[in-house]
């Protein structure tokens, strides 16, 4: 099998091959991850803190540089792309962050429109001169995420749940072919977490795009994901449907077992 052959896995939107990352030489955080992500559905990545979930997701759009391996997306290996190629690839990949990462001092509209920055010249970006089609789409997206009334508010005036909705709108504004989410609900209360996950699932399925979501909460993963990948020690130790994930697997992923008694949290 040739590694760059995208025909190998029919319908795979993203192929990760032998991905490794070590921040310190000889101490890999990711140790040879190989995954195929189907062209739809939500893949939840679970695992203990510090096991490389964030690193994995950040390697995909190269906010973190992989040490070795291949990531095939849209027929190109993202790992070897030059700066221009990488920017072109990033436009197609929307990302949602744990702490929302909105530009606090910009308005909600400016934050949403920043999803189009890959398509607008820097000069027009400085002048806030976005195409009118983008502006209507941004307003429509804000309605979709339920923030139509807050378009002109500054991002730092919003609550956590509202900010994450803006974060999702910004990612969707890219018209992405892949959605990444790095612990999107970890800073939110349980009710808001469910709302945010629902929004992401619905948007991903409406647009027919796959989403990869790092998540701490196993219950949320079971409820929203179509596939669960368990990561431990930088390697995949579980990969299957949510129904197949049992206590034995969780023990294997997180270690120990006393935390499993009397409900989990």
């Amino acid at each position, binding site marked *: 099998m040739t590694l760059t052959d995208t025909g190998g896995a029919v319908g795979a939107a993203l192929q990760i091959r032998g991905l490794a990352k070590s921040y310190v030489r000889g101490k890999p955080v990711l140790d040879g991850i190989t995954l195929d992500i189907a062209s739809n559905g939500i893949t939840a990545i679970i695992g203990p803190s510090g096991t490389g979930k964030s690193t994995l997701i950040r390697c995909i759009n190269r906010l973190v540089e992989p040490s070795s391996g291949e990531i095939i997306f849209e027929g190109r290996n993202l790992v070897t792309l030059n700066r221009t190629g990488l*920017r072109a690839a990033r436009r197609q990949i*929307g990302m949602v962050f744990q702490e929302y990462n909105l*530009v606090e001092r910009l308005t909600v509209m400016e934050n949403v429109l920043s*999803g189009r920055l*890959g398509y607008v010249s820097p000069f027009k970006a400085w002048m806030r001169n976005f195409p009118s089609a983008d502006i209507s789409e941004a307003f429509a997206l804000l309605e979709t995420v339920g923030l139509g009334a807050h378009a002109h508010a500054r991002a730092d005036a919003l609550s956590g749940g509202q900010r994450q909705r803006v974060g999702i709108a910004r990612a969707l504004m890219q018209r992405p072919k892949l959605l990444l989410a790095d612990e999107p609900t970890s800073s939110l209360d349980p009710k808001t977490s469910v709302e945010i996950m629902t929004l992401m699932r619905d948007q991903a399925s409406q647009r027919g795009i796959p989403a990869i979501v790092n998540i701490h909460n196993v219950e949320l993963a079971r409820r929203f994901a179509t596939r669960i990948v368990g990561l431990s020690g930088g390697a995949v130790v579980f990969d299957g449907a949510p129904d197949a994930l049992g206590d034995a697997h969780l023990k294997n992923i997180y270690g120990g077992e006393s935390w499993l008694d009397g409900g989990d949290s």
Partner: protein
Amino acid sequence: MAAIAERRWVVAPVHWATRAAWFAFAVYFVYALSHLELTPARFLAGLDYGYKFLTKLFPPDFQRWELLLKGLKESLEIAILASVLGLIISLPVSLLAARNLMPTWVTWPARMVMVVCRSFHPVIIAILFVKAVGFGALAGILALTVASLGFLGKLFTEAIEEISLKQVEAVRATGAPFMSVIAFGVVPQVFSRFIGFASYELDSNLRNSTMVGIVGAGGIGGTLFAAFQRFDYDFVCAIILSIIGMIVVGEVLTNAVKKVFRA
């Protein structure tokens, strides 16, 4: 309970090096006092000179107001032009010097430029420029531009280095080109601080522009120096009062500018 009551809290003893440093400082202070012959008699004699000087200063003489106004106008022009030029140059230089956005081989030379600009007092830079481009306002403008680059550059760089990289990362993740990342991820985070620094620099340039004239670089300073040398103390007093007036007006203006831009 008894065991707890018996525990004593002991204040950590002062390190011997700290004690030695304080002692050395006290010795030096006494030495410097005796070395400069700051005796009470010398101080009283100084008060006497001061009194005579004050009586010559007042009343101020505003008869040569045209000369005064010309000098003030030139100082103001030097201050404003130098501030604007310094601001324009320090924006890109500080961006290049920010270690959180640029690789070391870029930040190092940018930092060197700013350190060199900051190494000398504006008056020394003014002397250099008077020799280089001749007497007059041009030398003053260039000197204060260089000084502004040194200080604004440093302040801007520090502001950029304190921004939240998470916000920058999110903009970068959209595939935005570098200048758009700056426009959306960096500028909003530093804008209001930059306005504050720039108005502070304008304030400081107003002061400095009254001084570069002493070495021939234009502005009211030249007039002041000439008046001193001719013992025209009443005219000196008029100049000093006018400078105070200009600084106060400048302060009010920069505060107004800051308010307009407060985001």
